[in-house]
């Protein structure tokens, strides 16, 4: 009789929040199946019922300490929808400015702090050095630049919202403060250096991917559709339509974000709190799609800022059809987006309206529901609230980036497990490759399950009878 062993990596490290990878092995050491579990539950959709909808832009950012701005803005947009208002151009620009600060800081964190140690020091490098300190030891200037880039984005958030984490700037109908000319000039002065850092990082990742081209293309690559916001076909992170493209690049649909329920369904598996969203017309699993930087660059036709557009054109040349399916290329796409974010910041700050004091519109209207959609750093973020005639929340639906990518992360983990695991004695670097599949998507598990947590890495090898036959704890 074939005995089945279960190998667990719990929790996955250097992502935000934590999850667990389980790899099922048979007696011969061949991988039978692999799953990425999310085992936490926090329930913002439940405990916000009964609150006034106007409180949601302050409550929902608490879902996450890394991308609170995304929740803050998606929530404010949903509240605008309930009020039935279109915010002023100045408020729109200020919100987008904060959003670009968020994109830049989060992408810098993902690449420089979390993922580049694997890439630059190697998947098989000792655990003790494969972190940001190890990176600083080997590449001190690069580490410093990465930190500077993140700080740049964070300072924009702090300038507008009072603090870097859980800022408060957007309110239903607009924003609560403008930007002074001096604050604008302080940011503008840093832009040339930030562009140069982003371009240097793009050069670095291009070199890395080119050097290990074949492995990079094989690593956890899965065939899915792609989803992202676009405006006139251009990459868009704050507004626009949701576009879904097929794996080879055909546009399957493009629709108003408010209609997302007509197009997106959610599949549930008993072993994870994280749902599996899919494109309804194709059903589950065929309608599974990806979101985030790689998906956004696939969903769009162009980028409308000068230097990011040039980099995007080179990026599209990687494949014949211009669609890049390779999971490791998420890092490349992320850095092109960071450059785009810096250029958008420059464009927004060069607009005289950015210092306007026309910040808010009011309304006594209360529509029964409101939808706010934004491209968070990790992918499309949907906030949908239903309210009664007094504005009290009766129902909430949140779909976050990590949920959209759930299917792809699972399939990617399985692909890597099948390629690298050939027995029970598995080198540490293999575990790290499994984790890196997840890390490439830069998931925020705090967001996806609305949970928080931090534990050292625990790895268990368990027999089918439930007996722990091997346990490794690191960190």
């Amino acid at each position: 009789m074939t005995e089945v062993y279960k190998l667990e990596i719990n929790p996955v490290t250097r992502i935000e929040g934590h999850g667990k990878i389980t790899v099922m092995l048979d007696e011969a050491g061949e991988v039978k199946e692999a799953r990425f579990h999310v085992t936490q539950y926090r329930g913002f959709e439940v405990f916000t019922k009964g609150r006034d909808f106007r409180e949601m832009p302050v409550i929902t950012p608490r879902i996450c300490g890394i991308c609170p701005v995304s929740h803050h803005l998606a929530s404010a947009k949903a509240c605008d929808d309930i009020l039935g208002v279109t915010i002023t151009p100045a408020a729109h620009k200020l919100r987008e400015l904060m959003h670009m600060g968020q994109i830049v800081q989060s992408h810098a964190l993902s690449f420089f702090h979390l993922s580049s140690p694997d890439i630059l020091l190697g998947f098989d490098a000792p655990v003790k050095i494969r972190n940001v300190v190890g990176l600083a030891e080997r590449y001190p200037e690069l580490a410093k630049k990465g930190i500077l880039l993140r700080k740049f984005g964070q300072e924009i958030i702090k300038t507008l919202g009072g603090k870097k984490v859980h800022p408060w700037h957007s309110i239903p109908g607009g924003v609560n403060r403008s930007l002074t000319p001096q604050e604008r000039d302080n940011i503008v002065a840093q832009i040339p250096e930030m562009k140069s850092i982003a371009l240097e990082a793009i050069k670095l990742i291009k070199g890395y991917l080119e050097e290990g081209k074949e492995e990079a293309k094989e690593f956890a690559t899965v065939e899915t559709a792609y989803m992202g916001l676009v405006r006139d076909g251009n990459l868009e992170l704050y507004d626009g339509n949701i576009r879904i493209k097929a794996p080879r690049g055909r546009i399957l649909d493009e629709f108003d974000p408010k209609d997302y329920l007509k197009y997106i369904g959610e599949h549930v598996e008993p072993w994870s709190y994280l749902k599996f969203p899919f494109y309804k017309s194709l059903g589950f699993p065929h309608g599974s799609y990806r979101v985030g930087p790689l998906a956004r660059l696939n969903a769009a036709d162009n980028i409308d800022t000068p230097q990011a557009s040039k980099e995007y054109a080179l990026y599209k040349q990687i494949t014949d059809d211009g669609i890049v399916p390779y999971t490791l290329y998420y890092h490349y796409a992320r850095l092109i987006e960071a450059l785009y974010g810096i250029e958008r910041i420059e464009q927004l700050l060069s607009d005289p309206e950015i210092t306007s004091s026309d910040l808010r519109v009011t309304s006594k209207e209360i529509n029964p529901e409101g939808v706010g959609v934004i491209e968070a750093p990790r992918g499309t973020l949907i906030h949908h609230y239903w309210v009664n005639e007094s504005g009290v929340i009766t129902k909430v639906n949140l779909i976050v980036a990590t949920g959209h990518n759930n299917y792809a992360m699972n399939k990617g983990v399985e692909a890597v497990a099948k390629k690298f695991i050939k027995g029970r004695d598995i080198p540490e670097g293999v575990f790290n490759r499994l984790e890196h599949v997840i890390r490439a998507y830069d998931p925020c598990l705090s967001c996806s399950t609305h949970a928080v947590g931090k534990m050292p890495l625990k790895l268990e090898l368990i027999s089918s009878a439930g007996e722990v036959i091997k346990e490794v704890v690191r960190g």
Partner: protein
Amino acid sequence: MNVIVLGYGNSFRRDDGVGQRGAYVIAEWLNEIGHEATTWVGHQLLPEVALELEGKDLAIFVDASVDQYSDGYNIAEVTSSADIDGLNLHTCTPGWIKHLAAQMGIDMPKIVMVSVSGVDFDFGESLSCICMERFNKALEGFKKYFTDNFC
């Protein structure tokens, strides 16, 4: 002397907020006696804090502690440490920040840690009376430490 005082902790978890509050008080005292002191406060230490140390003569970290020190507080020089608990970025220590800064070639100021023993880390924005009293003692202790070592 060019000093940065870095206070960290969750100001919504009662005594955990002593780091942030204490940083402002220590910086105010340093400015009163003629030094140039700035503050940095946050919920937690992050890698970018390493950049804040650049160009300073002295860095003072202030934090709450679950360790119950005999005097209610502890003042010690920070030594460099590459350890990072759990291999994530939520648990940076002053020693880890010092190590990171050194790796990046930042000229190292002297670094001092002021830890104040807390007793109540429940939800709330005010410090417990015990923690407040301990911080007041820590402030006096710090004044003496500073005078003995840096004046």
